[in-house]
């Protein structure tokens, strides 16, 4: 099937979703990220790979962390970075997405980091720009957040080395999570033999098992013998509604505490894409424990985003 993120030579031209990437391509990105990791530890945290290129952060939906890490990543590659908070400017004046993007192209931007609340927005934009423009999806609706999927894979590889023997559990609001979808695809492609999703039925999308996961509704059973626990953020607006009765009940039935974590394999790691709701999906003690790799995820995220930009647009 035609894959819109590859060019006719089979090279990555955009990064729109994990689905459709080959294992080799993902490994290439992870290996490249590995080489960039050291740059962040140096005194002079810059390499000239994107010198002279302009990177535009176009966020139709608000975000602090993702936008900031992309900005740092681009700057470490020596790119010029422009941040546009479109959520509060041209969109409210009625400008279409394509007009917004085309205006920025007219200003000679090279890479667009796009976040949008609508699934497929990055695909849509990528299909209407010239081939020398690169689109990186920084989250589209509930569809995809590929750099998060890659940085999570990078994190797992750092701590667990071999994907082929792992059991991974993803816990929480799978229904509304582009992170969960990206992780499910990434882990499947990388050969993880058992991926579990743990959630009440209200927070699971239709036929999720067809994406290659085992479904658990009981967190204690779901966490048994896993090597990686990926927690998802529960959005405040999902609480006290028809999906969940209350945050207290959620924490009681699905929150990750040390007792539950002890059901997992010894040395299991705990991940979270942030921002965390302490006391809702995760107990503070677990979040700050030695098993937590939540802050390293952020550090690795910069290296992974550098790798993606370098592969798309650098003289790599």
């Amino acid at each position, binding site marked *: 099937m*035609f894959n819109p993120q590859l060019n006719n030579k089979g090279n990555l031209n955009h990064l729109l979703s994990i689905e459709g990437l080959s294992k080799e391509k993902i490994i290439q990105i992870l290996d490249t990220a590995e080489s960039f990791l050291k740059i962040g530890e140096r005194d002079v945290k810059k390499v000239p790979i994107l010198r002279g290129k302009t990177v535009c952060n176009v966020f139709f939906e608000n975000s602090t962390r993702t936008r900031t890490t992309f900005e740092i990543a681009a700057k470490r590659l020596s790119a010029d970075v422009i941040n546009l908070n479109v959520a509060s400017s041209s969109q409210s004046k009625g400008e*279409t997405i394509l007009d917004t993007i085309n205006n920025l192209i007219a200003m000679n931007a090279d890479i667009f980091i796009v976040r949008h609340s*609508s699934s497929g927005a990055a695909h849509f934009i990528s299909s209407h720009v010239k081939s020398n423009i690169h689109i990186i999806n920084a989250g*589209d609706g*509930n569809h*995809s957040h590929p750099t998060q999927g890659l940085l999570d894979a990078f994190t797992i590889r750092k701590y667990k080395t071999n994907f082929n023997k792992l059991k991974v559990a993803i816990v929480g609001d799978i229904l509304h999570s*582009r992170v969960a*979808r990206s992780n499910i695809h990434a882990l499947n492609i990388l050969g993880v033999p058992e991926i579990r999703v743990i959630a009440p039925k209200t927070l699971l*999308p*239709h036929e999720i098992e067809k994406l290659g996961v085992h479904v658990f509704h009981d967190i204690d059973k779901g966490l048994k013998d896993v090597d990686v626990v990926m927690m998802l953020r529960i959005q405040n607006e999902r609480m006290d509604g028809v999906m969940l009765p209350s945050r207290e009940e959620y924490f009681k039935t699905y929150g990750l505490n040390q007792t539950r974590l002890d059901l997992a394999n010894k040395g299991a790691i705990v991940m979270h894409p942030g921002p965390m709701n302490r006391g809702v999906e995760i107990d503070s003690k677990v979040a700050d424990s030695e098993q937590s790799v939540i802050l390293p995820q952020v550090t690795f995220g910069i290296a992974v985003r550098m790798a993606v930009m370098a592969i798309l647009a650098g003289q790599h």
Partner: protein
Amino acid sequence: MSILIKNGRVIDPQNNIDAKLDILVVDGKITELDKNLDAKKATQTIDASKKFVIPGIIDLQLNLREPGNQYKATLESEMKAANAGGVTGMVCPPDTTPILDEPGLIKMLKNKSEALKLANVYPLGALTQQLDGKLLSEINDLYESGCIGFSQAEKPIQDTEVLYRSFQYLSTFNLKAFLRAEDPYLSQKGIINAGEISTRYGLNGIQSISETIAIDRILEVANLTKTKVHLNKISTAEGLDLIKIAKKNGIDITCDVSIHQIFLTDNDIGFFNTNCFLKPPLRKESDRIKIIESIIDGTIDAICSDHSPVNEDNKLKPFAESEYGASSVELLMPLIFKLSEEYKIELSLLINKITQQPSKILEINKGNLSINSDADICIFDPEYSWEVNSKTLVSEGKNTPFFNQNLTGKVSSTIFKGNIVFNGR
């Protein structure tokens, strides 16, 4: 004025005709139908050899976008598109701007369309004021102004009391409801069929129970109030099962399906192709197969185009933010032909579902080639191969899931009340 249509394969399901015959049209009426009619009888002759000659198509769902949405299309452009699809009679839903809930608007639409002399327009009046599902429209007045039935378009009634009272009122005057079965709450946030595809794409899904619950509710109320109901655009296998049982139990119900549901599934959405954003959503393969079976076994009475031209800008958006609908009236007959060829379904059975059956549902004497009836005729060339693109489509709307695809068969001429309103080549 007189026209002789010579040597065509005449298919008229109502009169059980499928034979090579000539048709003579004089002063807007069909006057003779026989073998080897004398060419001297007519001032004009159309050579229909190797072509099908069928009654003018009656389309049960065709959005004319007028009044109000001329940015998308105009009454004239879409009636011409309908003619290019062999359509001479069309039912248009009331969700225009303004909404068709006032007799004056119906009269205006009737007058405007009659002046164009291209086809018969059968408007559906809004069942409730502003389609809000709260207060009844002036149903009798709307009927007298020319409404053929009453509809909620894409806005199902939420309040069951209102549904019940509106059916009672329709039933009092023996009028018909044309409804799309959709639960307003279960479908509220939905964009595409609920299933693996919606999960992969992160688009909100609409489950089949959204349709079946609504069908159940409509059937219960219709049965109790003895109201005539036609269900538009059924999309699920489960929904068709319910209708089949209801028909067996003698409930006065008919239904149609849109041409898209016969050929497409949610898999065709590909990489967020907004041309596949439709209402009801494209369903899964097992639904599609069931739809074809139900066409054959008669559970589905009619096939409509659900023609909905959309302005290009409104499709140039992320999937869920784009506007639903597809331009399709010009593809109806070619796709009916394709259905007949690919699934080995008798052509007259299918033609029946776009001519005689819709006429029966509308309770009009149309959709046949009987002597002395209005000469509304479609001539179809089954050998003509063409590509669906912005040049070949007459409609203002170029939005179709079949864009850039090749089709075999195209309407070559359309005659309305004895006048040639479309001549392809």
